[in-house]
């Protein structure tokens, strides 16, 4: 079975957008010499590109072993950084999330999460055994681990949404007046200019999108 074509296209496009935005953040931070969390941006870029290829064939880029190695190395790097940052709870939490994210992507590549091998969508058709037009697709290995990751990703997305600061209308106007004179907006994205481009809130949105897309990719093969 596979999902409607428009759905896989939409999901893969979201990942491409995440990757594009991460490149944009890195470029803007570099050109305007602004601070950004390079680790998060680079990780989002890699997951955006690799994740899109896990969902849609047209987004395929590097061979699976290469991506597996990339995220395995990334996972080890973030795990080591997590151990070194034991004293800083905030940084440790972020690095731990990065480590878990790398581990999940490695799992996905090893377990066989991949675009469907069926030509066209099975949406709107009969697909079960004994029914006319039975259509089967490959499933993942280690489905129990996949289920654990699915639950973890959903609750991770919820915690990220929970920590997003609400937009403040009054402070937005004030920040705009203050910050536009200096050429960049406030760091919470309520101002304009480069501050808006580098708003941490948008990185959080990227994390939510990544979590939901990875959840979707595993669930489509959890059969």
């Amino acid at each position, binding site marked *: 079975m596979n999902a409607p074509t428009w759905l896989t296209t939409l999901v893969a496009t979201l990942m491409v957008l995440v990757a594009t935005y991460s490149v944009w953040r890195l470029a803007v931070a570099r050109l305007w010499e602004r*601070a950004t969390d390079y680790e998060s941006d680079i990780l989002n870029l890699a997951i955006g590109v690799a994740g899109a290829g896990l969902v849609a064939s047209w987004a395929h880029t590097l061979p699976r072993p290469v991506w597996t190695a990339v995220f395995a190395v990334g996972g080890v790097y973030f795990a080591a950084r997590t151990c070194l940052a034991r004293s800083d709870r905030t940084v440790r939490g972020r690095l731990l999330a990065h480590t878990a994210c790398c581990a999940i992507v490695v799992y996905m590549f090893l377990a066989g999460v991949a675009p469907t091998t069926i030509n066209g969508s099975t949406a709107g058709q009969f697909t079960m055994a004994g029914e006319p037009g039975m259509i089967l697709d490959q499933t993942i290995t280690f489905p129990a681990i996949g289920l654990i990751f699915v639950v973890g990703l959903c609750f991770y997305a*919820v915690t990220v949404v929970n920590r997003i*600061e609400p937009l403040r209308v009054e402070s937005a106007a004030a920040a705009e007046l203050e910050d536009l004179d200096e050429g960049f907006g406030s760091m919470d994205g309520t101002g304009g200019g480069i501050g808006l481009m580098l708003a941490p809130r948008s990185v959080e949105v990227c994390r939510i999108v990544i979590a939901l897309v990875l959840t979707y990719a595993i669930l489509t093969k959890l059969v």
Partner: protein
Amino acid sequence: MRDDDGTMTRSAALTERSGQTPVDPGSPAASPSPARRRLQLVLAGLWLLDGMLKLQPYMFTKNFAPMTIGATTQGAPFWLADPIDWAKRIVSAHPVGTMALFALVEIGIGLAIAYRPTLKQGLIACLVWVPFLWFFAEGLGGLATSTAGPLDGAPGASILYGVLAVLLWPADRSGRAVTSEAVRFVGTRAARIVWVALWGLLAALCLLPADREPGSVSDTIAGNVVGAPKGYVWLLDQATKWTAGRGAEIDAVLALLLAFVAVSILVPRRRVVRAGIVVAVVLAALVWVFAEGFGMPFQGMATDPDTGPLLAAIAVAFWPAAGRRAEISEPAVATVPDIALEGGSAK
């Protein structure tokens, strides 16, 4: 580096711009009740998982409506079966549009509850969506049939979402009566009624003739084997062998335990109340693992995580937290039932 209201100070922002500190989104603002917020996030997570499950490829096929929605009409009275058949025909005719809409609604509810400014809207949407789902998709959780039982998913996951949404409605009520998160909005008496009704209903359902058949428990467990991972299949096989022919005995024990859970909240002893909640969580976990098969996700047909996690979440919401009596702010006449949730002694 943040003000009390959670906004980033200008100096902090400038420090981060200087390149010395990686930009991090920061921590959540202070909440009146962190425990309550955590439970709300559990509800949000379950809704999100629920919605994501509805994006599985199987949901968009023509098999979904007859095999999943249609199954709820078995043994149902005409006033329930006919509307469900009507809904089934609509979903069968438009599987892609309807399921995409369902998934979108449920993902939206989850995200709305998780995002603090839209918490109330999310809970309202949950309460509006739940009756629709409970009636048309779950057939009232099987309660209108003679085969409903706690091992078969009664009283339905949807209604439990609704119960949890009401119990966790944002409220800052404090005072001596607020002894758990469940009573903060609805009050002690209403919370106690909900608890007794829910667990008492589950206990009563165990006594139905269909649930006392010798093979009722083992058949239910064996039904989860299809598509499951090897280790889980082995566990289910062992459980199936052990329960074979013991359906009546197991259901009797289950009914007794559920009845204890139901009345434990009325006993004016904190230890008994907590024991009842622990038993409730353990039973919910056992039901989820063995009878519900984690909601049967390994068959690619799971539409929700089933009742297990929701029953556990409801039980945790009733946990009488230590130190709650320190919140005393208003004089009140202590009645024996009031003390039950408070966890005090009746002496």
